[in-house]
Every structure is written in C-alpha cells, then in structure tokens.
C-alpha cells in the first residue's frame, strides 16, 4: 500500500496539490453523502440511542454512584494500566519490528511481515483460549515461566499479554509506511559527517516517526481498553486485581442492571472516542504543518 502511496506522492509533486481548488467539481457528493449518512445513522448512531436512553433514565447522582463504585474504579485502573503497559510494549516492539521489516533483508521476512496481521484476522476468543493454553502452568511457556517464579496466566500480567497480542499490528502498520517513505538524504548526510547511529536516530529519524508512533500507540491503547474476548480467558478475574472494565459491564448485565452496564459502557466509550478524535485532529494539524513546510 505504502508503495502505491509513494508513487502517488511522486505524482502529486509533478502536478501541484489541487486541494481547495476543487471543491465540488467531482460528481457523487449527494449520493455518497446519502449512503454514508444513512449507514452511519442506522448502523452506528441509532444503536447508541439505546445507550443514551438507558443512561438518561438515571439521575446524575445515580450515574456517578454507579461509575465510581470502588470495584469499578479498580477495574478502570487495572484496564488503563494494563492497556498502557501493552501499548508501550507495542510502541517499542512495534517500532523495532517496523524498522527491521523496512530496513533489512533476511530469510523469513515475508513470513514475519504477513504474520503481523494475525491478531486482526484471528477471532479474539480463539486468541484467548490459545494464550491461556500457552501460558498456563502446564503450558509450553508456563512450565518454564513457573520455574522462574513468573506467573502470567490468571494474573494482571496475563491481561497485558492478551492486550499486547490483540493490538500489536497497530503500531507496526502505522510506523511502517512512514519509515518507508523517509527520505534518506538527511540521514546519510548526518552519518557521513560522522554522527553516531544513536545520535542520528534520535535527531533525524525519530522526529519524523513519532507522530505515526504516537498514533499507533494510541490506537493500540484504545483497542486494549475495550478488549474482552481475549482477556477474559487469561485474566483470573479477581476483584480489585485482575477484573477489567469490560467484565464489570458484563457483571452488571448478569445482575439485570442494564442502566449500570450502559453507564459504565458510556465511560469507556467516551474515553475512547475522545482519544480517537484527538488523534484525528492532531494528525490533521500535523499534516498541515508538514505541508506548510
């Protein structure tokens, strides 16, 4: 994909960017707007009204009481910390992986590149069962880790492992194209001037990468916040220790408390949406700045 982007980038250099000039020249505005709005309203927004109706039936103090229940608050902490750990790990490892895939040739590279997307393609429940099987005390990994005194399955670490798995592709796939399109001139110049690799990486390469990296980490974080299928099988689900917020929603549902479930769900939803919107705006700003340069 990124290679196609490169080609088009080359093209748009020859024909200067026409953005702004071509407001409504192209046909299909009405049709595509119609389809999009219809679909978004029916599939995305209409169901959300259900949530709004449930939540609005509660008074503010009820709502506050439900979402600040100590056990729920503990689950926010567990979820947020685990998601943070997972997305930071993915930030570091995803960067490394993207780097290796873009810069080096080695046997098995195609395989590694393909398998990065596995977490998107594999159902999360299957991932959960499989990870639990691997990391359980008698599993392939578990038996070694147990000897080292490390417990993964059924501890908060298990939650992190599941989140790392399900959100790994985000960072790799956002950083990879940027890294591919990075112009080599500055870097080569700096290296030939005798700057150390670390220095060049920090001063020349990293500044170009970090917007993509932040986006990837944020996407990975958002995804981890909502993860349920994979986490539930490996978490142990101990109150205050390894209960994630998705499980709290599930628990409220089991108690027939739809309002409370909706209230907690709305907290997560809002947090995720704000984060996603912030990324979109930030990206747009950043692109504008790049164009202006």
């Amino acid at each position, binding site marked *: 994909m990124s290679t196609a982007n490169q080609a088009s980038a080359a093209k748009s250099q020859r024909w200067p960017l026409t953005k702004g000039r071509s407001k409504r020249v192209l046909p299909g505005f009405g049709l595509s707007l119609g389809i999009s709005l219809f679909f978004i309203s029916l599939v995305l927004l209409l169901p959300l009204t259900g949530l709004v109706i449930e939540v609005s039936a509660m008074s503010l103090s009820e709502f506050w009481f439900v979402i600040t229940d100590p056990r729920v608050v503990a689950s926010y902490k567990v979820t947020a910390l685990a998601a943070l750990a997972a997305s930071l790990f993915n930030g570091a490892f995803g960067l490394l992986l993207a780097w290796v895939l873009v810069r080096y040739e080695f046997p098995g590279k195609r395989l590694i590149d393909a398998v990065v997307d596995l977490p998107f*393609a594999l159902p999360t429940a299957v991932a959960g069962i499989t990870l639990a099987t691997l990391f359980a005390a008698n599993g392939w990994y578990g038996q070694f880790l147990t000897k080292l005194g490390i417990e993964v399955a059924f501890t908060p670490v298990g939650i992190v492992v599941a989140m790392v798995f399900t959100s790994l592709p985000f960072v790799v796939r956002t950083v990879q194209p940027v890294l591919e399109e990075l112009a080599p001139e500055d870097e080569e110049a700096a290296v030939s001037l005798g700057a150390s690799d670390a220095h060049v990486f920090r001063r020349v390469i990293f500044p170009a990468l970090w917007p993509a990296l932040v986006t990837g980490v944020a996407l990975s974080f958002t995804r981890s916040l909502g993860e349920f299928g994979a986490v539930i099988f490996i978490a142990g689900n101990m109150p205050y220790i390894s209960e994630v917020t998705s499980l709290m929603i599930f628990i409220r549902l089991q108690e027939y408390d739809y309002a409370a479930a909706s209230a907690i769900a709305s907290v997560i939803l809002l947090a995720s949406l704000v984060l996603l919107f912030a990324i979109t705006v930030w990206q747009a700003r950043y692109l504008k700045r790049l164009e202006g340069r």
Partner: protein
Amino acid sequence: MASNRARSTRSLQHRRVGDSPAIKWLLIGIAIAVTTGLLIMPLVVIFTEALSSGWSTFADNLLDQYTLHAIGLTLFVAALTVPLNLVFGVALAWLVTRFRFPGRKLLITLIDIPFAVSPVVAGLLYLLLYGRNGWIGNWLADYDIQLMFSWPGIVMVTVFVTCPFVARELIPLMQQQGSEEEEAGVVLGASGWRIFRTITLPNIKWALIYGVVLTNARAVGEFGAVSVVAGNIRGQTNTLPLHVELLYQDYNVVGAFTSASLLAGIAVFTLAAKGFVEWRQARTVIRLQAQETV
C-alpha cells in the same frame, strides 16, 4: 516492498543508521524471536491441539452436523455483511476524500466507533434497541418480526463491528492519490459512474480487496457481539466462534480446537491474500515507474 529492495541496493552505496551487522542482526533476532513467540506459536498450538487425537478425529469433528451448520451460517453471515460494508466503505471514502464540508472530521471519527466499543457492549446496544423491550423491537413485534436471536440479528451486529475496515483502508490511499485524474475525467465529460469505474476503481483496487479481506476475516470471527444477540441455539444460531466456545465448555477441547483451526485457517488465508495483494500492488507500481521513466 519493491521500494525496500530499491532502498537496500541504495544502502550499498551510502551507509545508513543501523547498518552495522551487530545491530542489524540483534534487531532481526529480537524481531524474529518475539514474533515467533507471540504470533506464530499460538497458531502452532491451535493446529497441534486440533490434531492431537489424529486426523480421523479431526475429520469426525469437522464433519459433525452442528459444526457443518456453524460453518454454513458463518459463511452466510459473512456473505451478507461484506457487500454491505463494501458499498458503505467506498461511499464514505469517496465522500471524505473528494469533498470538503463541515463535519468531515467528525464523520471520520464516527466510523471508528466500532473500534472503540467493546463487542459485548455493541451486542447490548442492539439488544436494547431491537429486543422485545426495545422501542424498535417492541414495534416490530407487533408485525411479528423478530430480528434478535435469529440470523438477521447476527448480521446486524456483524455489520456494526466490521464497518470501519473498508473505509479505513481506502481513506488514506485516496487522500494521497488526490483527485486530479477524476477531475480530468469530469473535464472530458465522462459520467460519474464511468469515472469511478475506469479511473478510481483501478487505482484503489488492491486496497479495496484488502479491506474486503479484513472485513471478511473479522465478520467470520466475531464472538462477543454475536454471542449477546445469537441466543446460543445449537444448530440454529451458532456461528463458528460460538461453536468453539460451546465445544470448549463441553470438555471437547480437541473439537473446540478443530473449529478454532478452521478459523485460524481463514486467518492464514487472509494473511496470504494480503501478501498477494501487496505483491500485485508493488508490481503495478514498478510498471508505472517503468512507464514514467520511458
């Protein structure tokens, strides 16, 4: 990928960061080790467990009446979901990359909702609305229409969960490509449909296919949302991922991993298809570049 090769020949002439063999092989080593441990081993486990009682058990499990039904239902749901999201994805991508209008950014954020909503909550949303006590479900019940706990409900939540994929693949690409070619088409007096078919479609073909492949993979594999609205009736509303859980609960671990291996097979196929798509894309680009130099 083609450009990688171009770059690496380039780096023969100019030294770049991280070219020293020690660092290079250290990084490659870490990448291979972690990827193998985190991604490849789980795949291996699934197939090992599925075949742990031999091929004939595997075949028996696969040909079980309920498993076959689950496969059929899953494919049926995917066959309905994918075209719907294809149309939506293309329309939305066209809208937000070819026109500027107020609310555009909000629209782009809105399609990310399914990424932000936990699948269980997604299922709940539909249940609250279309269930017997929901305001639409209540109204539909008067006409004896039931959407939840039957296949329409499964399709609906699957559409919800998978609707961002096509648009997400197309938007960055179409943004980068710009609309000059299409505008030229307009100037030459071509109809909208013709412009789309002869100019846009060839340009976005591979990204579109990848989006479809991803949508399909997710549609086939959705668990959380479907489990809320499906009603878990064996042989009627049991999709393949639900079937995995059901068998797992039946202590039929081998059977569960057999069905899981089907899903993993679809995942591997998805990855292979994606590899192929990228390879084709790279070839197109090389051809284009060759033409340009001529």
